[in-house]
């Protein structure tokens, strides 16, 4: 029995490697993951809806006192809020803000974390110890509490480009407190990869450290980095919503999913839709992103897929 299983594995390996590029293989494995496919469809739908928000006949910020607290109906699928604004329109515009903050945080943590991890992992020695001590220190910050403190301070001051907790301010604050996972991940991958022969070979051929890192090591570390990006997107959206829910994040009248929930607190007992829909959007986004991350993790790790399919 053990024998037949082994040969079966070998056939699968041959079949799946024949005539396909790496990205084709990854895509093939990703498609096998039902959760990841469903997550992708939902997320793409959400992003399209959010992009098409301006098609809504209602204004997201202008109040309309004749239409306060309308129950969900065909005119207002999610009802209206305390100022008579269409909740669906606000949720869609809020989604733009929340998703933008999420993507910006990913960009910030990615560039900061990858740079630090790459320098630490490739250079080693003194640079490595200093950067890793900084990472340790950052990891021992009670991040949610610091996040609250920073945004509570920034909420009340005027600094050029950072007006009163704009999208950029919030993204920077969240990003500054969450690049550490990337740094550690990239460092660990680099420590292994830099010892491999192809790196030595390109060093002998006269490649500069920058060239080696960018064109030889990074492409080989891309899998875990992409997976971490999706997870980070989820965390960032939850963190922004939490911060805005507490009132320290994006400030009204600009809607974000978090501050829609925050505003709902006053009236949700009588008008429950105010609390239900914005939270549902957060939930849908996070669960899709997490499933996509899971699918990508499996897709970049062929051993795991075979194991899951019971073929290994």
């Amino acid at each position, binding site marked *: 029995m053990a024998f037949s299983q082994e040969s079966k594995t070998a056939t699968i390996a041959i079949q799946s490697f024949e005539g396909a590029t790496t990205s084709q293989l990854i895509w093939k494995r990703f498609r096998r993951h039902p959760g990841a496919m469903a997550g992708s469809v939902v997320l793409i739908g959400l992003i399209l809806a959010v992009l098409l928000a301006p098609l809504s006949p209602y204004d997201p910020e202008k109040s309309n006192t004749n239409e306060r607290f309308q129950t969900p109906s065909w005119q207002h699928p999610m009802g209206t809020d305390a100022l008579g604004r269409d909740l669906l329109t606000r949720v869609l515009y809020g989604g733009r803000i929340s998703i933008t903050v999420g993507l910006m945080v990913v960009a910030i943590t990615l560039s900061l974390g990858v740079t630090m991890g790459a320098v630490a992992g490739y250079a080693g020695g003194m640079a490595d110890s200093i950067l890793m001590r900084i990472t*340790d220190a950052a990891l021992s910050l009670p991040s949610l509490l610091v996040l*609250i403190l920073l945004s509570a301070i920034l909420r009340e001051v005027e600094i050029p480009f950072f007006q009163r907790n704009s999208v950029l301010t919030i993204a920077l604050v969240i990003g500054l407190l969450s690049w550490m996972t990337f740094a550690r991940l990239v460092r660990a991958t680099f420590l292994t990869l830099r010892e491999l022969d192809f790196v030595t070979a390109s060093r002998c051929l006269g490649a500069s450290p920058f060239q080696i890192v960018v064109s030889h090591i990074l492409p080989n570390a891309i899998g875990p980095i992409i997976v971490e990006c999706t997870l980070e997107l989820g965390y960032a959206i939850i963190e922004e919503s939490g911060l805005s829910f507490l009132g320290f994040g994006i400030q009204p009248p600009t809607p974000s999913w978090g501050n829609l929930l925050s505003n709902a607190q006053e009236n949700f007992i009588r008008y429950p839709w105010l609390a239900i829909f914005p939270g549902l959007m957060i939930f849908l986004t996070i669960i899709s992103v997490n499933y996509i991350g899971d699918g990508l993790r499996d897709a970049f790790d062929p051993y795991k897929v075979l194991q899951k399919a019971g073929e290994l």
Partner: protein
Amino acid sequence: MAQYIVRRLAQAVVLLFLLSILFFALVNLAPGGPLAGYGQIRRMPPEQVAALKRQLGLDKPLPFQYLVWLVGNDWMKVDVDGDGLGDSLGTRQGILRGDFGNSFRSRKPVVDELNIRLPNTLYLMAVTMLVALGIAIPIGVISAIKQYSPFDIAVTTFAFAGQALPEFWLGLILILIFYVWLKNPLTGDPLLPVGGIYTIGTPFSIADRIAHLILPVAAGSLGWLAWYSRFLRSSMLDVMNQDYLRTARAKGLSQRAVMFKHGLRNALIPLVTLLALDLPYLFSGAVFIEMLFSWPGMGLFYYQAALQRDYPVLMAILIIGGISIVLSNLLADVLYAYLDPRIRYS
């Protein structure tokens, strides 16, 4: 091992020292300065503000202020009446001796305020954790043993959903269901209470305490439950592929003994470590739950202090948060080495 712990403790002290400098700098260099949250400061005439700053020692250079914050000023003359001259010995003892100053809002010592609230948070955290683990361990183990069974698929899906549910939204929805929609059939009151630890003005009753715990614990524990059940499932699956389990089975032990005596005990090792690492996050997650359910603990206190920029309170809780993270990291490493004899630190 003892040597390792001593070295780690020394590193922890250095790290905490750096964190204290960071927090101090953050508050003092923040626009508006450290007095931004000090009551009527905005309506005071400038001379009075200057006098107040002298009284509080804020006219001194920052490194000196940091030193006073750290070790106190009971060894030097301070300017009590704000006229610019030292009068008598100070009364502050510094955070190293546990004196975090007075809250701007209540004017009472921060330590006294924390002493009232810390037990409430620990109480909520402990119950939340017990509930999360009490459910996560059995379902994690069963779903690993019955991998790919309908039960396993249900648990995995539930774990994904649970991790994607923000606790503040879950809290709102639970309030809607159990406070607004469902009523007690006998009295017509809301089915479950949503504020505080007990009903104010009634004698102590266990039932009342438990009723007040249900919703905050449910909202707070679901995410952890999802996370731990997922973690334990994969940790159990790892263990199940180990040689020592095959050996145990080959010895002729029953499936039950193999799984629970050899499997589960080894699968729990990483979970214990993870628990130690997660403790501080439980503490900060309490901000949302305590705010939603008006639970008079550290999280709610921090939230209120942040709204009013009550810096002495914020600094105290940040320092405590930093200490708990550093210590729990150390605890995790020590526990790991203790529980798994294959691991040796040098």
